[in-house]
């Protein structure tokens, strides 16, 4: 009997989770369109409901009632199962991501481990989607996603490990409790930067939206999907974005800790703040090329994440004062930032030199035609 009751509670919890996440996705779609609109000199949706609030609902209805086309040449089984894999892996990690001290469906002592482990499964779905749709752009996108997501999984895992070392636990509740004095943002700024950037790559957001690049591979793995199947990918992408934002908030921004307000409010506030930064980045940057993306992962992100783990371990082992970790972390961040800045602006500096030289030439001997 008690077993049945626990099953019933779990089912109820899952239903609530599904409902809440759906609302979250709708809110994120609306927020993204509004935020991007404001960045781009336009209003975003205004016609459907007040402030266009019903626009995501209209979009969802449109997608669901659209014809669901399955290409003749596709591997039907793989084509069907790929979106399911992606969306299940997106939902399943939310079982143990807490939205507050007691707001969690199933509290796990190894929560962080579970989240990291299940987040990777989504890659399989993307590769299968590309393969199963019998489309060359799809295959291209699927292979790109495999390369990209596996590369960026390493920094995510290592930085999560560094946080776990600091908190001496893989339990999300204890990680948040360990940040009650000061959030890990203060002691491990390097970790936050790595986690956020790698997280952007994990969910395929600009500037890392390479595997579904609209102007190159026309949607990549999703190119043959339409209607409800496509909307499932869409749903998973937004849930994953929200999950990365939530993990950033939990691991580095002190989770639900905060004065006065209830813990869920603080959690949502911090998570949506990170989500807005994600949208801001999307409105600002062009896309990297695949070789630049991989070089960035293996030459910058992976060494830096190893460095993060090492400084966290040294700090724990010798029981150094907390500010020493901050200094180490900032030093690593500054060194890496300087190298990246020099590398990325090298062409710009060369261009400026060239223009100066041209201007000097012109000034010395003005062209007879001008």
């Amino acid at each position, binding site marked *: 009997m008690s077993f049945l009751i626990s099953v019933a509670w779990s089912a109820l919890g899952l239903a609530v989770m599904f409902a809440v996440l759906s609302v979250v996705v709708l809110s994120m779609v609306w927020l993204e369109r509004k935020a*991007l609109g404001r*960045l*781009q*000199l*336009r209003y975003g949706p205004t016609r459907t409901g007040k402030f266009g609030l019903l626009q995501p609902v209209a979009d969802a209805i449109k997608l669901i009632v659209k014809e669901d086309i399955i290409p003749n040449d596709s591997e039907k089984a793989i084509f069907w199962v790929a979106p399911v894999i992606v969306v299940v892996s997106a939902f399943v990690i939310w079982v143990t991501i807490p939205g507050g001290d007691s707001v969690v469906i199933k509290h796990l002592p190894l929560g962080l481990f579970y989240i990291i482990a299940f987040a990777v499964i989504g890659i399989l779905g993307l590769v299968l989607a590309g393969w199963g749709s019998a489309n*060359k*752009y799809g295959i*291209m996108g699927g292979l*790109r996603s495999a390369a990209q997501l596996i590369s960026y999984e390493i920094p995510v895992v290592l930085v999560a490990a560094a946080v776990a070392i600091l908190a001496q636990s893989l339990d999300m509740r204890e990680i948040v409790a360990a940040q009650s004095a000061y959030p890990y943002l203060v002691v491990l700024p390097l970790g936050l930067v790595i986690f956020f950037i790698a997280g952007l790559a994990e969910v395929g957001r*600009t*500037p890392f*939206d*390479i595997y579904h*690049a*609209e*102007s*190159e*591979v*026309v949607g990549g793995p999703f190119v043959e999907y339409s209607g409800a199947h496509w909307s499932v990918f869409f749903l998973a992408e937004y849930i994953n974005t929200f999950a990365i934002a939530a993990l950033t908030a939990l691991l580095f921004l002190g989770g639900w800790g905060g004065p006065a307000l209830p813990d869920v409010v603080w959690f949502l506030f911090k998570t949506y703040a990170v989500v807005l930064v994600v949208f801001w980045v*999307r*409105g*600002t*940057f*062009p*896309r*990297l*090329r*695949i*070789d*630049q993306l991989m070089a960035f992962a293996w030459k910058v992100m992976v060494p830096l994440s190893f460095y993060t783990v090492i400084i966290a371990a040294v700090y724990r082992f010798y029981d150094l004062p907390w500010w020493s970790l901050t200094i180490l972390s900032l030093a690593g961040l500054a060194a890496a930032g300087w190298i990246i800045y020099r590398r*990325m*602006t090298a*062409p*710009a500096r*060369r*261009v400026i030199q*060239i223009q100066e030289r*041209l201007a000097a030439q*012109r000034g010395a001997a003005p*062209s007879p*035609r*001008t």
Partner: protein
Amino acid sequence: MSTQPDTLPDIQADRADAQPVEMLLNMGPQHPSTHGVFRMVLWVDGEKVVDVEPHIGYLHRGSEKLCEGEQYHQIVTLFDRMDYIGNFNNELAYCMAVEKLMGLEVPERAEYIRVILCELNRVASHLLYVGTMGLDAGAMTPVMFSFRGRERVQALFEAVSGARMMHNYFRIGGLKEDVPDNFRELMDELMPILREDVEQSDRILTFNEIFLSRLKDVSPITANEAIAFGLTGPMLRACGYEYDVRKAQPYSVYDRFDFEVPVGLDGDCWDRHWVRVQEMYQSLRIVEQAMEQLPDGPVASPLGRRLIRPPAGEAYVRAENPRGEIGVYLVSDGTDKPYRLKVRPPSFCNLSALRRLLVDTWLADSVVVLGSLDIVLGEVDR
């Protein structure tokens, strides 16, 4: 110093020596980044482009042949529809060809208004280029900024000619009619805002780190090769070769203005972008000077109003279009319709270098390189 481009393997869609790892990827005619209905058949090895075969002609309307069946005044509309981003520049090239054949003097006011509209059209065209280049590189915001400026220019065009794009405003020997009475106010209102728009579209993209690393050193081409391929306009100037028809062989009243010809150095995608952005500033300079010097008087030669029968003979004129040098070759047999009309479209000639530029780049670069060519398919296919 060879004038021949590097030799490349022959183009063949069914490559006999294709490696098992190579994949044939069809890009276009329906693809978001082919700028219309261009089609590239790419051989790719993973992410590397091994070979490319361009397919054109999806927008072929036989414009040159159509010209032979139209009276001289009616042909202006056909030129509008060739390079549909630089309409005024195209109209000007055609009108100049007929005027040269007839030895027709164009009133000074008409020449100035033509220059003003052509340079504004150049700005509008380059703004469109900046926006689409951003989209090709994956940035979705610049297009909104640059289209705002373009829309303002087009509003002025509408006030002047009655149409946003297919103006049909230039006439042989002048203009269809004088500009509206409030033209000067409209321009005074437009110019500062337009300069700001150009500056914003420049700042938002040109020196963005990711944009730079995507475009700098991507498919560079030397000036010698560029000349061998017949590249003109920003494509050629990006290689550091200072050639601009407006300076080299001034037409209309371009010799009365003080402006510079921006040149790049490496001839790579970023230099092409930079040259176009700098050209916008120079065009604004020309427009400002032309507005100061704008004289009063008639805008159409009385001869141009009648049915035109140019003397038998031929004429070739060239002009600097936003995309490069347009050439119009006109043969008349003395009737009211041209015997033959041949256009040298800059986009088509620039596109000829596509294979040289694309082989051995990344797949993602193919989109950027095509964007940096700034082709208009209406002109390529005619």
